[in-house]
């Protein structure tokens, strides 16, 4: 195939076209330094995906291990705590007295998740106030718990919470015990809430309202407010 004639070699091309074509500059050469730099960068960049994928693999394995450990701890530790903790809240309550207590529409939330039977074997201490003294006999973990103030608070309140439905007066005693031990402890709001509930169960409605007012004052805008309203008025407000 015969080649076409370049415009620059032709005499029939417009002057304007030729002037522009003649003004063209030669292509810039690729100097060895730029080429070497480009090659170096290329080698690094092509190596990155391998390194990055390896890094992501290691990171994902590490993350999986950490998450797995966290989940295991979250599941196993509470169970062991339950096993080691003395069964404070279970009290010996005659079935007849239990049947007299009407179920409350709103109950205090569990501080320790799993529900246990409120009925305690007859061998358990009958006086709640001396439970701490008797506890070491039945549960070796108690000293550890008593060394932990928050753990002790939780124990007392949990015991009170379980007693509320079966024996509100003893629940109230337990709450007073909490008050005498910890005063304005970490879980004071929870105690006040349980007090309101226990008083309501005992039919001491005015006292309950007074306690509720104090609690609302102490924790304005908190979740307790709504729960108190539900308890006292049976409404969402």
């Amino acid at each position: 195939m015969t080649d076409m004639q370049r415009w620059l070699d032709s005499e029939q091309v417009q002057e304007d076209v030729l002037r522009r074509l003649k003004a063209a500059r030669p292509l810039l050469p690729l100097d060895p330094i730029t080429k070497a730099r480009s090659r170096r960068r290329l080698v690094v960049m092509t190596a990155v995906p391998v390194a990055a994928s390896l890094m992501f693999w290691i990171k994902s394995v590490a993350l999986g291990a950490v998450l797995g450990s966290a989940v295991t701890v979250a599941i196993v530790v509470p169970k062991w705590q339950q096993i080691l903790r003395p069964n404070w809240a279970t009290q010996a309550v005659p079935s007849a007295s239990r049947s007299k207590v009407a179920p409350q529409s709103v109950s205090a939330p569990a501080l320790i998740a799993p529900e246990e039977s409120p009925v305690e074997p007859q061998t358990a201490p009958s006086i709640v106030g001396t439970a701490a003294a008797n506890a070491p006999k039945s549960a070796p973990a108690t000293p550890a718990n008593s060394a932990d103030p928050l753990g002790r608070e939780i124990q007392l309140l949990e015991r009170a919470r379980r007693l509320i439905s079966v024996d509100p007066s003893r629940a109230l005693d337990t709450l007073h015990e909490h008050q005498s031990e910890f005063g304005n402890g970490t879980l004071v709001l929870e105690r006040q809430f349980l007090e309101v509930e226990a008083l309501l169960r005992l039919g001491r409605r005015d006292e309950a309202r007074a306690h509720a007012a104090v609690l609302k004052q102490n924790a304005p805008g908190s979740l307790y407010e709504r729960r108190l309203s539900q308890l006292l008025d049976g409404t969402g407000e």
Partner: protein
Amino acid sequence: MKIKWPNRHSPFVTEACVPTRSAEADITLDVAQLHDEYAEFVWRNLQRLGVRPSELEDALQDVFMVVHRRLDSFDGSSKVSTWLFGISLRVASAYRKRAFLKHEQGSLEFYEAVDENPLSDPEEQAQRREAELQLQESLESMALERRAVFVMFELEGLPSSAIADILGIPQGTVHSRLHKARLEFTESIARQDTTRKVGGVP
């Protein structure tokens, strides 16, 4: 990432398809080797396709990164240079779009990047500069495939057979593209002249 080259089992591979260096049987190529061999080729083609000097190195890098990603999909049914030109074309197209979106004036930068000869006449310098800018503007208005053919044929003086070889297209297609490119170039010059007259430039 490596490939076996040439692919002897491919029915499309003939001796003509195989680069000279790969005439030895089963040479293993990788991207670094391709870079060593074809960097200048890609560099020249990127300029032919209108990539600005300041972006040439990045564009060169981009081309070989694409090569790296696509190396195992290259079956040797075409020449390596043709394959590389195709990649360069797409990379240059991306750079052109980006420059367009940023409203960048590639032509101005191109010629400002190159030193003028300080000994030449200032008026002559100005005229030359204007001609360069107009040339660049005309080239910018062309489709990339036609621009490449036009630059190779008209400005670099490559024969159409060599251009066909580089682009991996028939010689007749080169002529066809060149013909269209010439038309576009002439129209562009006419537009420039009209604009200059309307704008009152002598």
